[in-house]
């Protein structure tokens, strides 16, 4: 499978609109970051893509077809934080039985990795702490080596060391399989080094979708005394604005096609914005 296309997908839970006409195309061979606040609709979108729940309207196309069959379904794995796994199943059995469904699953490697993370494979899933549970499901997800791996909050409850180990593992599997990995997470700065594509979701809508490079190139901080900053603000799309004691900082977006910026007045500083800053600015902007 090469592409997954989300077409006009909406999802309502009673009066709450979790997703509003979302359109998205996921291509093979990229690491995506699906970013958004709590309740933004990230998990709902992933559940719909993985056919766990149905959209209220719209559809998902897998290489152009609307449903997964026995072959194409082997190309998808969705790891989610909710308790949907058999609680009484032992960790090693969880690995073994998952391996029965995914032909490229490397059982020995999975068990070895779990050992390295300090997880007792004989424990039952309901005996694991939140952090260990997340490690188990993340390792199993990666070891399926499916064409499209969706990981919802893969580092939930992890300590910093284990998070780093997991990021290394994500990169290793990605290099080996050249598959697509979609990371849905709050830890934006941490995963920003892994990402190639960024999808920012807020209030059930995609508000930003671009390559990481594109996002970083087109967003920057402009700061200086308020008056000169105000004079040049019209040249950009202002995402966020902070004023303090006659000093103004703007987070701006410039068009990719825009001509090179003219020389800026003296006293104006331009600096690179971090992905997390951009994310926060967009979310605040949406709230307004």
């Amino acid at each position, binding site marked *: 499978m090469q592409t997954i296309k989300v077409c006009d997908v909406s999802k309502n839970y009673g009066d709450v609109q979790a997703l509003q006409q979302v359109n998205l195309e996921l291509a093979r061979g990229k690491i995506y970051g699906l970013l958004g606040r709590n309740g933004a609709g990230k998990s709902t979108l992933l559940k719909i893509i993985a056919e766990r729940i149905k959209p209220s309207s719209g559809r998902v196309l897998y290489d152009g077809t609307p449903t997964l069959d026995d072959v194409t379904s082997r190309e998808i794995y969705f790891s989610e934080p909710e308790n949907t796994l058999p609680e009484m199943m032992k960790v090693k059995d969880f690995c073994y*039985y998952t391996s029965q*469904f995914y*032909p490229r699953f490397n059982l*020995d490697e999975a068990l070895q990795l779990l050992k390295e993370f300090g997880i007792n494979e004989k424990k039952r899933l309901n005996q694991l702490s939140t952090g260990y549970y997340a490690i188990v499901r993340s390792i199993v997800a990666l070891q399926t080596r499916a064409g499209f791996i969706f990981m919802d909050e893969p580092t939930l409850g992890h300590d910093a060391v284990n998070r780093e180990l997991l990021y290394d593992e994500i990169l290793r599997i990605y290099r080996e399989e050249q598959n697509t990995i979609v990371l849905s997470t709050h830890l934006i700065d941490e995963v920003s080094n892994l990402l190639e594509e960024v999808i920012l979701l807020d209030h059930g809508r995609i508000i930003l979708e671009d390559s990481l490079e594109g996002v970083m190139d087109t967003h920057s901080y402009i700061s200086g005394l308020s008056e000169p900053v105000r004079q040049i603000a019209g040249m950009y799309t202002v995402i966020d604005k902070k004023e303090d004691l006659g000093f103004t900082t703007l987070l701006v977006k410039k068009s990719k096609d825009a001509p090179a910026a003219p020389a800026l007045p003296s006293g104006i500083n331009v600096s690179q914005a971090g992905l997390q800053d951009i994310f926060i600015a967009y979310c605040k902007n949406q709230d307004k």
Partner: protein
Amino acid sequence: MKTNRKNKPLLVSAVRVMTRDYGKFFISFFGVMTALYLIGFIVNLSGGNMKIGGIEGVYFIACFVAGLASFKEDFFFMAQNQVPKSTMTKAFIIEGFLFGIVTSFAVNVFAHVMAWISSTINHEIPRFIDLIPRVDDNGGLSGFGRNFVIILSLYVAIYFIGLMLGTINYRLNWLGRVIFWVPFGFLMLNGFIGTLQYYLDNIDPEELEVLSVALAKPFINAIDWLMQNLGNFIITCAAVTVFCIVVGALTFRGAEVKYSKAK
């Protein structure tokens, strides 16, 4: 690199995973049953008179509970592994028949072994009552085969009743469950008590001590009819099985994973 190189068809993997706990189930189930029979032997050999009437009911309940309980966990795990609904449905059907075959064989062997021990030590032991043909009336291989077919038909039907009810229960919200289960429970309990009174206490259908005689009589009539001969029995079980599979499959079609809370 050790991988699942056999690359088995998904249906085979699904059935394999669904049947993963059979070993544990049979060991614990027949362990308890063996213990009960042993106690029966010991008590009776010691001069007592212990009978475990209706013990075969345990087998029915086991089949019913297996069907009822297997739905949610298996559905979630299959969904976790992206098994399409059509393949899941086939896997549930195959698993139901496999469970019926294995259980019927094991129960039949168990009953014959207990009957043989009973005759060897010349002591009466608890045995199948007349709701299904008595094992000790059907000796030899043909008797074993006949009982196997009877028990298989019954267990498969009961398993699929359980699975269908499990599926319906899963699809309903709390209000739907109340609306479904309260009348259903009343109907079943009323009919069950009436049937027991009719068969065990020989009470006339018009004199049954149940909340609704009118609702209990169809149960008795149906059981009377299906117990008339083997053909009626097999046909009824087969019809119930087909009905439950069709209703269960239709109910399952639109099922989504219901989420509780994150770990």
